[in-house]
């Protein structure tokens, strides 16, 4: 039995929403970061699904690009988070508003 494409899309939408809402409501930087990853992978899932539904390899290719970018982002993002935690024992996203205009 094959799972219909719409289910995947639904799952991806749910994951994306969870990620988005999490990003907006949580203050812990690490959690926010994980939410971003969640959103990215939700998008990946969408791409793969459409690639299969439309029989177009392009969707799968894009996923590779997204993964590469996500990996790079993880490296930079985690580095920033680690250096923030070195300076402050406890930090939420709202404490760090140095770029306030």
């Amino acid at each position, binding site marked *: 039995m094959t799972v219909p494409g719409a289910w995947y899309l639904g799952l991806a939408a749910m994951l994306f929403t969870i990620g*988005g809402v999490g*990003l*907006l409501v949580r*203050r812990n930087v690490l959690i*926010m970061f994980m939410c971003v990853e969640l959103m990215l992978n939700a998008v990946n899932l969408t791409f793969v699904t459409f690639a299969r539904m439309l029989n177009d390899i392009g969707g799968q290719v894009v996923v590779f690009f997204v993964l590469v970018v996500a990996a790079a982002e993880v490296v930079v993002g985690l580095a920033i988070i680690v250096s923030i935690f070195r300076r402050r024992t406890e930090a939420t*996203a*709202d404490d*760090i*508003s*140095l*770029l*306030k*205009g």
Partner: protein
Amino acid sequence: MIHAVWLIPALPLAGFLILLATGRKLGDPRAGYLATAMMVGSFIVAVGVFFDLMGLHGEERRFEQDLFSWMQVGGLDVHVGFLVDPLSITMALFVTGVGALIHLYSVGYMHGDERYPTFFVYLNLFAFSMLMLVLADSFLLTFLGWEGVGACSYFLISFWFERPSAATAGKKAFVTNRVGDFGFMLAMFLIFATFGSLNYVPVLEEAGTLAKGTASAIALLLFVGAVGKSAQIPLYVWLPDAMEGPTPVSALIHAATMVTAGVFLMVRVNPILDVAPGVLTLIATIGALTAFFAATIACAQNDIKKVLAYSTVSQLGYMFLAVGSGAYIAAIFHMVTHAFFKALLFLGAGSVIHGMGDEQDMKRMGALRKWMPITSGTFIVGWLAIAGVPPFSGFWSKDDILLGAWEKNRLLWLIGLITALMTAYYMSRQVYLVFFGDERWKHTDQKSSEEALTEPDHEPAATVGAGAHGGAHGDFKPHESPPTMAYPLVVLAVLAAVAGILKSPLEHWLEPVLAHPHQFTSSSGTKLGLILVTTVAGLAGVGIAYAIWLKGRVEESAMEPEVLRRAWFVDELYRKVVETPGRALANFSAFVIDAKVIDGTVNGVGALVRAGGSRLRTVQSGFVRNYALAVAVGAVAILAYAVARAG
């Protein structure tokens, strides 16, 4: 030698460049001698070229030298080149000759001035510009020299720029000249549009084919230029003020360079003028009026140099009268004799000023012939020449002009005749006041009431010692000037006395330059009668002055009405008509347009950006989650829009 014509302007240019670089090191007086040597060299080359040109015959007496291409723009290809013909070489000869004498004189006159080398830098540049003007083979190159003499006159008139009056006079000369230059430029545009060339040779050869309207327009515009440069009504006002410069500069401007440029230009373009008879009449009228008008003013001036200045304006009027009458050769002849006797008179006046310890008021001079024998002797020769006493040079040239005017229009002739009488009168007045009569400089307390009217600051800062009016009184004794100043006077006096013999050679010599050789048509009886009348008028002027200024037959002040002393209030009129509205416009531009409108716009834009920025900065909260929300809302909005459009 004729191929060395480029050396004539090149030598003063070299002098200018050398002095510019090393003038300070050379100092006083070597810088002066270097400049003089350059002018003498230039004169020698000019003489050589002259003899080479004389070796050619009639119509062949023309030599063109093309040096290099100056600029090429579209159809306009301007070359730097020289046109050597009887006219240009005549001009070059007396510009370099008289110029060299004036340079030599300046060596002595400027001695002790703190900017001595600079003076000679300007003087050489001045000579170079004038030589470019006369030797150029195209209108544009002439214009280069034309502007050059304008700029140099500005530098030199305001040479003692510490004095506000000198600085103002320089500006006045420059601005007034610019008005005329405008006419010259427009004329060049029109010539180029008509002929497609600015070179003299093709333009003047085809001038006969011009339509009358075009020819009149070109002639009129060129005349506007000449009016500015040669100080005719209504643009003559700068010339009397130019007296603020050092005296050798006055001599150079009035005699050899600058003011003769306008007359030269008119004679140069005589083929165009011949096609425009209306403009010729205008030129003759303006010339006669200027001659008369300036002569009346000269009758009532007390400054020794101001008299000569107005006399120059008047004599230039004569030259334009001659041009307008079609007697081009008479104009050039008078220009040459005038160059001699006016240079002589100016240098003589400078010598007097020098010897009197920087006194310029004639009412405080007198009996100087005992103290300054060379100066007074030569000055008297100059006086007789300008007064038209036979057989001195001025007599011959003035006579030719009046003959031309007689044939053109009897009224113009009458004005010219009256002017001749007045010329003799005011020059005699000057000579009697300066060299004869009582030794008025001995009486300190005798202050003439005219003093308040002459400008307060007359002393040239240059010459030795005292420098103030007081120097001319008390134990003071006038003294003769040093040899470098006296020798040029003697040379010029000889020339001014005998230049009349140039009359018929010059007529023959200049003939190839003219499109239509001008012949006086009057019978020899008429000619003789006119000569007699002119001579009588000149002698009458001398006699009247003798009765008034030496014998005291008439109350002196009656001969100097206020209106003449103040030069018919022309300066006041110009101030009202030109300066007042001009100043109002400038104030309006500066304090309303600039300060309010332009600054307001610029500052307004700045204020707007600042205000907008301070409002918008609150958006930048620094909270990452705020930004994320904004991104989310934005994404949703775009999606909604896309969906709505698709639906």
